[in-house]
């Protein structure tokens, strides 16, 4: 919801973006802070956790105050990372991990039945972690408290990204684009096309993707299963890229440029290129804050594969607190490892030069990515049943 409510546009986006453009530069962060806080409070109270959800605004306040202690090489940066991870663990993974500890039995004494997910927690904690790590490494400046608060409370990207970097955001905040008509022309166009992607494609396809459950899979002919899973792949792309379009277009109304999240991922001819074009800000984040700290690709080949698998398993777990998401992540990890192996064996790739090779690469990539969605949208048992029906009948 949120981006498909009139309240978002008329109560938050248009007034805030308009005000941001007319106030003096010193006041701009304040506009972001006030509008972002109002946005968080309103949508938390109405949709995400009620008043308890709204109280999570204190997490932003605490984070911004604590961030003032960050210095290059400081222990406080590491504590900052730890507390961001703890926030995420408590709200998103508490029941999952305590459930694992009690083997998912019905009698998990630590089960938190009234748990709620604070608005945008998966995304803003990644921005908290990024800032703490980059301050630790000295690769970003501290900025003023209000600038940092404006960064974490910038509402167009607060809920579901694109995941920002402080180094990119700060110059935009301090010196936003002044070409009002260009920004508003592009911003409005972007928002409208994002909504078309969501309403006219993604939502219509739910009539097919709703069938991805055990009962319907059991009665459907096999050829229909292919239609459903392809529809899911298209659905999730149009849903999230539509969302990203609205977020990027909204930021553009402020004169702020936000990094792109998608670059025609389904047209890519290998899995590495797919990931370089799918949810790009998350992928960059995973590389910078998981893969490289693990050693990246400057270690032995075996360790590289291990790092890839860990990174992608983490990516899966981030997408949802369920084993099926972990399997989805591992599936992609395995594909990336397979691609890396292939590249080691056949480099340069003849596939990259011939049309037939590119077509084969595209078909293989699209098929494997599409099959992988089975683990994303169904629990493991249902997904395995899906494959059983698809392959055996």
């Amino acid at each position, binding site marked *: 919801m*949120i981006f498909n409510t009139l309240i978002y546009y008329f109560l938050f986006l248009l007034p805030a973006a308009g005000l941001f453009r007319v106030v003096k530069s010193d006041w701009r962060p304040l506009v972001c802070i006030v509008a972002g806080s109002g946005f968080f409070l309103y949508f938390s109270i109405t949709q995400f956790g009620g008043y308890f959800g709204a109280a999570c605004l204190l997490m932003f306040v605490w984070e911004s105050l604590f961030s003032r202690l960050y210095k290059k090489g400081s222990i406080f940066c590491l504590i900052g990372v730890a507390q961001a991870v703890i926030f995420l663990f408590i709200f998103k993974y508490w029941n999952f991990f305590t459930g694992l500890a009690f083997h998912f039995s019905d009698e998990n004494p630590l089960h938190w039945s009234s748990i709620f997910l604070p608005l945008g927690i998966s995304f803003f904690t990644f921005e908290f972690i990024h800032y703490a790590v980059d301050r630790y490494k000295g690769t970003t400046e501290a900025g003023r408290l209000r600038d940092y608060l404006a960064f974490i409370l910038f509402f167009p990207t607060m809920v579901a990204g694109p995941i920002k970097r402080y180094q990119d955001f700060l110059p935009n905040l301090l010196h936003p684009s002044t070409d009002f008509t260009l920004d508003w022309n592009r911003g409005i*166009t972007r928002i409208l096309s994002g909504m078309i992607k969501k*309403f006219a494609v993604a939502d219509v396809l739910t009539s097919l993707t709703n069938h991805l459950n055990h009962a319907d899979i059991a009665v459907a002919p096999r050829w229909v299963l292919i239609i459903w899973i392809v529809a899911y792949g298209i659905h999730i792309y149009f849903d999230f890229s539509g969302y990203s379009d609205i977020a990027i277009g909204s930021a553009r109304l402020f004169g702020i440029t936000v990094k792109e999240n998608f670059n025609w991922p389904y047209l890519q001819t290998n899995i590495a290129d797919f990931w370089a074009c799918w949810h790009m800000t998350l992928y960059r984040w995973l590389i910078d804050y998981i893969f490289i700290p693990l050693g990246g690709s400057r270690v032995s080949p075996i360790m590289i594969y291990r790092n890839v698998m860990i990174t992608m398993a983490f990516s899966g777990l981030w997408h949802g607190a369920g084993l099926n998401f972990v399997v989805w992540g591992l599936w992609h990890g395995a594909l990336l490892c397979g691609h890396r192996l292939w590249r080691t064996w056949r480099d340069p790739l003849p596939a990259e030069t011939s049309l037939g090779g590119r077509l084969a690469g595209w078909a293989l990539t699209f098929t494997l990515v599409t099959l992988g969605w089975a683990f994303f949208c169904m629990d493991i048992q249902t997904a395995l049943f899906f494959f059983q029906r698809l392959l055996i009948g």
Partner: protein
Amino acid sequence: MDWIKHLLEYLGGEKDIPPAGFPLTLNSYWWGIWWGLLACAILIFCGQSSKFIYIDF
């Protein structure tokens, strides 16, 4: 293919410069009609009230 991608990105608001040979510049009144058409299409298709998938993450 690249030209079509560029065109779609331009019409979708991602690119600021039109692809070579495309007559509609950013200064055109046609953008008003384009926005109107998109808005009408949104009016027709909205109402399913389904959540964005990534918003629950």
